[in-house]
């Protein structure tokens, strides 16, 4: 008889781990939800959810915190994908939070709704009484995230306390919380940017068009290419020009930069990423550049 050595590829191992995490949440929590922005990480997370519960439907709703500053292509994708799955999509709107006076909008050229999202997110978690919230964050993205647990405890103010995290051993996750507290769950913790793209290629997963090279009117600010849009305030010293660009991450138009790229297919994107020398957040996210501990500070407040 032939002897097999039962090896598994890195994507199979990562997928099996993520499925295990999703099922653990579905079994142990009353009201989970999955944050779905239409970005590549949340798209992969949604595919994992589809696999984890097949042939049953995904047993929890999706939620998007919509700043009103998102790319149209991404919003269209979000609506179409959740419709295909027959999933319930909750849209928590930052504009509503502003209108209700829960948050005050920044003004000026660098105004961004990035930080305001935290209030909208925490209000929505409270309103819907979610006790577990899936996020697509990965530990390779950022050094505060490198230390965050897969099951990340949040107190009743939604805050993360990095110095007081629960130890996480083997594949055993502690799901115990009191009412009002919740757990952020990161099934893709051990994935890298390249793993996500390899998986998108392997699975033939559709992603929004802005990830691929396209011609767009942009202007330069702090070495980043920001799009021409009514929600982005552009100074007279910031001239528009046309460039062939793509997005490595998908966030708000006000703080997400495009990179010059000719990559028009997933294969070409993988080639480009394998050769790049700048991290995705370093290249494209103004929100992480504000200080050395920008991400840690926002996470402590309850950010994604």
């Amino acid at each position, binding site marked *: 008889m032939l002897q097999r050595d*039962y090896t598994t590829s890195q994507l199979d191992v990562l997928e099996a781990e993520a499925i295990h995490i999703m099922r653990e949440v579905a079994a142990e929590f009353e009201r989970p939800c999955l944050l779905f922005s239409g970005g590549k990480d949340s798209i992969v997370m949604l595919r994992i959810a589809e696999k984890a519960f097949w042939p049953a439907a995904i047993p929890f709703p999706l939620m998007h915190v919509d700043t009103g500053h998102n790319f149209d292509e991404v919003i269209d994708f979000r609506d179409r994908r959740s419709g295909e799955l027959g999933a319930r999509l909750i849209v928590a709107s930052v504009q509503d939070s502003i209108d209700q006076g829960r948050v005050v909008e920044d003004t000026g050229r660098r105004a961004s709704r990035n930080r305001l999202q935290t209030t909208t997110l925490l209000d929505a978690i409270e309103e819907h009484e979610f006790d577990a919230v899936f996020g697509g964050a990965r530990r390779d993205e950022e*050094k505060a995230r490198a230390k965050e647990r897969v099951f990340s405890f949040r107190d009743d103010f939604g805050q993360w306390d990095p110095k007081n995290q629960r*130890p996480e051993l083997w594949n055993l996750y502690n799901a115990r919380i009191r009412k009002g507290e919740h757990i952020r769950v990161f099934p893709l913790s051990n994935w890298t940017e390249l793993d996500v793209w390899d998986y998108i290629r392997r699975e033939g997963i559709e992603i929004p068009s802005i990830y691929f090279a396209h011609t767009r009117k942009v202007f330069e600010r702090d070495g980043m290419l920001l799009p021409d849009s009514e929600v982005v305030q552009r100074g007279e010293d910031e001239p528009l020009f046309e460039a062939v660009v793509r997005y490595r991450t998908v966030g708000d138009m006000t703080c997400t930069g495009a990179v010059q790229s000719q990559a028009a297919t997933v294969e070409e994107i993988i080639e480009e990423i394998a050769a790049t020398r700048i991290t995705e957040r370093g290249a494209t996210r103004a929100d992480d550049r504000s200080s050395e501990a920008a991400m840690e500070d926002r996470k402590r407040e309850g950010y994604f």
Partner: protein
Amino acid sequence: MDILRFATAGSVDDGKSTLIGRLLFDSKAIFEDQLEAVERTSRDRGTEYTDLSLLTDGLRAEREQGITIDVAYRYFATPRRKFIIADTPGHIQYTRNMVTGASTADLAIILIDARKGVLEQSRRHAFLTSLLRVPHLVLAVNKMDLVDYAQERFEEIREEFTAFASKLNVSDLTFIPISALNGDNVVSRSENMPWYLGTSLLHHLENVHIASDRNLTDVRFPVQYVIRPQRATDHAFHDYRGYAGQVAGGVLKPGDEVVHLPSGLSTRIASIDTFDGPVEEAFPPMSVTLRFEDDLDISRGDMIARPNNQPHVAQELEAMVCWMADGVKLTPRSKLTIKHTTRTARALVRDLHYRLDVNTLHRDEEATSLGLNEIGRVSLRVTQPLFVDDYARNRLTGGFILIDEATNGTVGAGMVLDAR
């Protein structure tokens, strides 16, 4: 390409950060913007060299105090393998963090400063590696450049450590003389140590055989979640009833006779399902869904095994426990929540037999409690039967966590020694 998970132990003084920095840098896992940020911070602080520990010390308090608080996970890949590093701090909270990092590790690297030799800390790290049954251990004798790349010094350390390791459960021990700073024997073989005939550290990490570290003998499938489509994606699945979980041991195939615990009833596997279609076999770490030929009453927390190879069905456990809580201690009569595979129950500490000194391995039988970072042998009584194996035989069915019922914190990690 497969994945190797490894833990690194040692303090900044041993050159651990430099070693990790070099592995990441040489495998292009450190990016220019990260390196620039580290260089800028090093300059601002007046450090003469680029302090690579700033790459891993991600929290504000860590940077302010110059210490590492928590386990940091780092990632890199070579064309042969993807690597996940659990980087555990040497000093602060060492036991708790190292136990956490080692619990999922295939391999551990312990760094030793060639000038200082085997220290108390090295013994402690080796003991924890063996307690957590990390299958492969590498002793990296670092700073060989500072002892003139002397073979005699390396051999001295090797002999001393080998003598100590003989008291432990270490099945695969490899010694590599390196200089993390200069890159000797890290990625490629060093020309400075022609007497060393082994491979470089990276070559070892890329090639160490881990496929047979998993238990492929004892079929263990903890039932995690019952899939019964209320709103099926297809009407053909209206009567579907599947048992989802991650295989913890053995190889399962359709047609295999299996036993369900706790009922003890036997049935056969009708199908092993996945979203991508049925599969012919399932083995660790696959997440699959099983269907059975007979309609049994099966729920989360139950176990599927083979009729002639079953785990212990136990309510009395003997275990080594590492205590991880600040403040509250483990004492006889402590009541805790226990989570083992997919089953959660309550546990009563019946007895604390001894507390182990992790430096000397001395057993203190007079001990009456376990405090933060202390390890001891305990007897537990559990309210419901657990389906356990000795930890030495299967880390997934032999490991458990203890949860404080007042704070909900994870306060202990346990390894089953002798189940009855």
